[in-house]
């Protein structure tokens, strides 16, 4: 039960041309934890997430997903446990209808038709998107795309959810729905985002990434109070904490 952990040790990644994107990242997420990953553009957030899901293979270090260590052989297995929500939903919704997209993962898992249908309807209702089942994926609004993208991942019953900028492109209402959804999930969650107010609402813990390394890792409220740290990492104090608006 308590094995939905994510243990990263000295993770390194270098691009083919030699540039080092990740220079030794280490942290551990426990079962059910909600943790934010913040950092400037280019700090290595996206690279790290691709490495965690095995979409790119690290050049060094280990990634342990609930007991399975990531390697070329175990990549497919790791992906079964990690639900990765992309920043651009258009890349993630590639089937003709919403139903097809949410069913894609379960079908690949070899489930029976009845099981697949069940997974799809549960996932869609968790994401608040049941009414969209027969809609063509290219006829969805930005917020709807995001909800459906989340559903496609939920349907695979992942242990760990990794989301890349889930709030981007959403209007305030969509964002509020998203925050509600994320707070209610019981999965282990790692959320990369620029939206520090979202972090305050959803993630008790924050990891700050700067130039490929972990610059800070601790309770969100503490980290966001350290203006000098944030500035050094090219971040800013969240809006609601500016001008002494909040504690």
């Amino acid at each position: 039960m308590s094995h939905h952990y994510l243990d990263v040790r000295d993770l390194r990644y270098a691009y083919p041309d030699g540039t080092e994107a990740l220079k030794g990242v280490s942290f551990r997420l426990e079962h059910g934890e909600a943790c934010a990953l913040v950092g400037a553009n280019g700090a290595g957030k996206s690279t790290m997430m691709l490495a965690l899901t095995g979409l790119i293979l690290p050049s060094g270090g280990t990634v342990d997903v609930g007991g399975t260590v990531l390697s070329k052989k175990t990549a497919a297995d790791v992906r079964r446990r990690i639900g990765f929500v992309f920043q651009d939903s258009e890349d993630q919704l590639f089937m003709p209808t919403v139903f097809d997209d949410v069913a894609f993962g379960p079908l690949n898992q070899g489930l029976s038709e009845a099981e697949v249908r069940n997974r799809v309807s549960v996932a869609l209702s968790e994401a608040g998107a049941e009414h969209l089942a027969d809609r063509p994926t290219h006829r969805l609004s930005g917020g709807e795309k995001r909800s459906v993208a989340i559903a496609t991942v939920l349907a695979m019953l992942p242990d760990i959810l990794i989301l890349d900028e889930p709030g981007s492109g959403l209007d305030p209402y969509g964002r509020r729905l998203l925050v509600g959804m994320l707070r209610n999930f019981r999965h282990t969650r790692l959320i990369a985002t620029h939206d520090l107010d979202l972090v305050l609402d959803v993630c008790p813990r924050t990891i700050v990434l700067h130039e490929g390394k972990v610059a800070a890792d601790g309770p969100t409220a503490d980290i966001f109070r350290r203006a000098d740290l944030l500035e050094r990492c090219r971040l800013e104090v969240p809006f609601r904490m500016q001008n002494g608006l909040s504690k």
Partner: protein
Amino acid sequence: MSGSIERNLSALAEAVDHSQASGLVHGLDPRAKILVTLLFVIAVTSFGKYEVSRLMPFALYPAVLTGLSGVSPGRVLKRTLIAAPFVLFVGLFNPLFDRTPLLRIGPLVLTGGWMSFFSIIARSFLAVSAAVLLVLTTRFDLLCLGLERMGIPRVFVVQLQFLWRYLVLLAGEAQRMVRAHTLRSWGNRSGVSLKTFASLAGSLLLRTLDRAGRVYGAMKARGFDGEIRMLRPLSFSLSRDGLFLLAWGGYFLVCRFVNLPELLSGAVGR
């Protein structure tokens, strides 16, 4: 395709929205609709080139479908009109080359060329309207499923589905690029210059290749192993779809081999 990107995109969006409706015609098995449409087109195009009046009874099919499905006739008509520049161009040569008089109505002499020209127009209207109605009353994903059950190779059907899914997105990107360019240039009416096109298309192509990579990554992240699996079996109901197929198929056969207009004239006369 003629017309601006905007117009094409909205035509596509319209068609997609229409196909999502529910109703008698929408609920029919796509295989039945595909077959009937094909039979229709074959029957219409099998007439001799001077045939005009015997094509008229075929108009019942698009008329009934339009009525039953709630599609607006104006929309169907509009699309049949857009279709035709090449046809009209070629068709207009008929009166030029075929001057044998065929029919005189008062002072007006209709040559064979004109009769065949009208026949061409009638065929065009009929054939295009049948295709338009097929697409407006059938969800594209179900259409593809129907094609697959009818024997089209899976790789081609999957290709159709992916193409359709990303079509609107890429057309939108193209539209934005053209707009951005138009804002920075002196608005050439008939299009961008060759050089500009090469760089517009070139950048769009590069972005497309990148997207292909990301989509592939997303597919792998959800367990893709090379095979696209699809659910939602179609159910062909003999009473509903079989009846549709037989009834219309039978009607087309009758129209093809019995001269209904003459019969009707005769009956009215009597």
